[in-house]
């Protein structure tokens, strides 16, 4: 079976600085794969390359068997990949509903837009309560829900999540991970970048570990949880 996403020898560089160096991994359909690693390891750059926001220097990205390397970001969304960026990047002066509207930009008509929004509101009832409120006035947790909801508007086959738990209170962190599991259960494949490596490994089936832009480990999450190198570098004491 071909994997839903396959990354082959990916290199990403900014000016002379190489952020990702010859990275290869794949994401099987219907799985959660975590991408973990220290700061500056190249996790975010990898996601940006997949969603077409940066052009890779080398390598290929295959989605459902099709080469999408270097395609424009909007075409990649149409192909079925949605990206929740680091730091949420919601549009603060717009209302919750307007943010979701924009998330559904590529939907063909009002009716499918409405249906998509209802689906998001089912998942996040809190957003329904605040649909008219300015997005910038939401709490941190609600903003993260909005960012995820906005990406889900297009019912993507692959959801890219970049540090969804960042800056959230402990109670909310637990809730966000529940949400990710729910999204996965409803059939969406997830590629998850997280600094909260322990939690990420717990909910994912496979994990890819990066170090200085290179692949350090690629394996089952459960086995990585007890891998001494990984414990030492990312998990700290239990």
């Amino acid at each position: 079976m071909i994997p839903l996403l396959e990354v082959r020898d990916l290199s990403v560089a900014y000016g002379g600085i190489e952020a990702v160096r010859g990275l290869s991994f794949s994401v099987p359909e219907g799985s959660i794969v975590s991408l973990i690693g220290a700061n500056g390891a190249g996790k975010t750059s990898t996601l940006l390359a997949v969603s077409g926001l940066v052009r890779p220097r080398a390598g290929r990205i295959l989605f459902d068997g099709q080469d999408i390397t270097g395609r424009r970001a909007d075409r990649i969304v149409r192909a079925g990949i949605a990206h929740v960026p680091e730091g949420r990047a919601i549009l603060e002066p717009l209302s919750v509903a307007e943010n979701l509207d924009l998330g559904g930009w590529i939907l063909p008509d009002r009716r499918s837009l409405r249906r998509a929004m209802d689906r998001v509101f089912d998942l996040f009832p809190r957003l329904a309560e605040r649909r008219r409120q300015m997005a910038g006035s939401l709490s941190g947790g609600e903003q993260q829900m909005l960012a995820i909801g906005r990406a889900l508007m297009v019912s993507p086959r692959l959801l890219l999540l970049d540090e969804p738990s960042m800056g959230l209170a402990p109670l909310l962190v637990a809730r966000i991970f529940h949400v990710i599991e729910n999204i996965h259960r409803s059939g969406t494949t997830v590629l998850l970048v997280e600094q909260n490596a322990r939690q990420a490994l717990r909910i994912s089936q496979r994990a890819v570990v990066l170090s200085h832009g290179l692949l350090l480990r690629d394996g089952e999450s459960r086995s990585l949880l007890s891998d001494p190198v990984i414990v030492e570098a990312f998990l700290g004491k239990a």
Partner: protein
Amino acid sequence: MNRAGLRRFLPGAITLLILAADAFISVRNHADLDRLLINGILALSAFATLHARMLSLANAGFMAIGAYASAILSVKAGLPVTLSFPAALAICGIVAVLIGLPVLRLTDVYLAICTLGFGEVVRILIVLLPGLTGGPTGANLSTGFPYEAMRRVDTGMIAVFLAMLVYLFWTMAPSKTGRAFRAIRERPQAASTMGIDIVAYRSLAFVMSALIAGAAGAFYAHSVGSLDNGDFRFTRAVDILGYAVLGGSGQWFGPLLGAGLLTALPILLRDSLGASIGFLRSFAQLPNILTGLGLVLVIVFLPGGLAHVFRAQVTARRPHALPPGRTGEGHAVPGPGVARPAPGTSALLSVKGLGRVFGGVEALSGVSLEFDEGGVYGLIGPNGAGKTTFINLVSGLSAPDSGTITWRGREIQGHRAHEIARAGIARTFQGVRLFDEMSVLENVVVGHHSRVHTNLASTWLRLPRETREEKAAMNEAAVLLARLGLSDLAGRPAGALSYGDQRRVEIARALALDPRLLLLDEPAAGMNDAETASLGSFLLELKRRGYTLIVVEHHMDLIMGVCDRIDVLNFGRLIAQGTPAEIAGNEQVLEAYLGREEG
């Protein structure tokens, strides 16, 4: 000259070469060359305000003042240019200070509109004073303004003046003043928390810009030999802005390049097209149309301006690479450079009844807390509980609606951010606010702002003090970076770093202020557990060195591991206070914040 020196010199040399080439190709007569040089001067006057994040369109007005002042003094009072020129500059300076006092409170588009209005007022005054200025028709014998009597200047003199300006901007760029301007340009608020007095620097930039534009005007008057108020319409202000747009306003040589091209190109086109293709001569506007087309192409394909092409080299020339073999080991973090007070004296910082309302919502209400010197305090609570508001009030970025903030016995609520920073309170930002275009090392050196005792005079005269102080600040910054494990990144533009690394740079930058109190707003966000743990041990080292810390954080391991006391906020009120152990078992805190089940 060593290699680094050569690299520093390179952009300037290239610019001068291009300008020289421009001049050589296009000059058929002195008038064209004068115009090229004068427009170069005007370009620098635009740069002076733009690099302090001010969109001022007053240049045309100051140019008019300089031109008419020098012309009138020359014609009516019979002064030589060597006297009328400085007198015209003095008048421009005085007007700039008077206009600047009210106008500099405005920002962005309001400043642009207001300064545009100033330019028009100047022009109308010129029209309304025919006895003095020749009025609407300019040179008019009946008004008794015989331009023929005006002294002329040499092209060489204008060139020397432009070269001098280039030297001033070139040497200023890497100095304390240049850094302050770049910091203000990128993030004014963060700059003010580095102890940079934004109003003072903006005033300086505005006056500099006015003097330079006035000089350009005076040269213009003595070069052209006649004046017309139409020369100083707002289209002139827009032209000057065009130089900066075309060339890019990030570096001083950008607008200069823009001016060179926008002036030389129409001259070149006029000379070549006009002579060769006869029938095209009827299209008088053709050179302008082609120039406009070029401008559009640059904006589309090089949004950062022509100077953007040089940016990579410029960033590379500023890495100030650390001495080899320098690692974090063995380099102690310098402690606060102030004597400890005797124990038992009053709290270092105390807030009483602190309140702040945003649009009817109480972000903070009636919060009273005391912080003793040398302690590590955790401030936790759900998102939106008022933690960041608290930090903003203490660091002076916003003023409280009620309550007092007492710092070492003195009330400081409502003081401006740079005053509070200089008094010894430094902070980091939840959403990281580094100066993205500066190198990591430069970011930290900006933190030294109020401790580097150089000024423009020492910069321009290359006094020994300048080199000494700069080197000391660089070295200290390098040590701080090494201690935070950032040595390898010192030469990178800060914006290219990952989130977690940027947070560490922010901490280094805050420490560079030599503060007594450090306010950290989510320092571990974006760090993994191992990185968070090493941040924790770094914070404990800071505590040992005598710093006082207030840490807002959601990583409970960090908070529990380093704090002496934890204060819990919810809906803007203090709901609990205690040692980590007490907080971990507090019912209310579990309910509102921590949650019960353990992952």
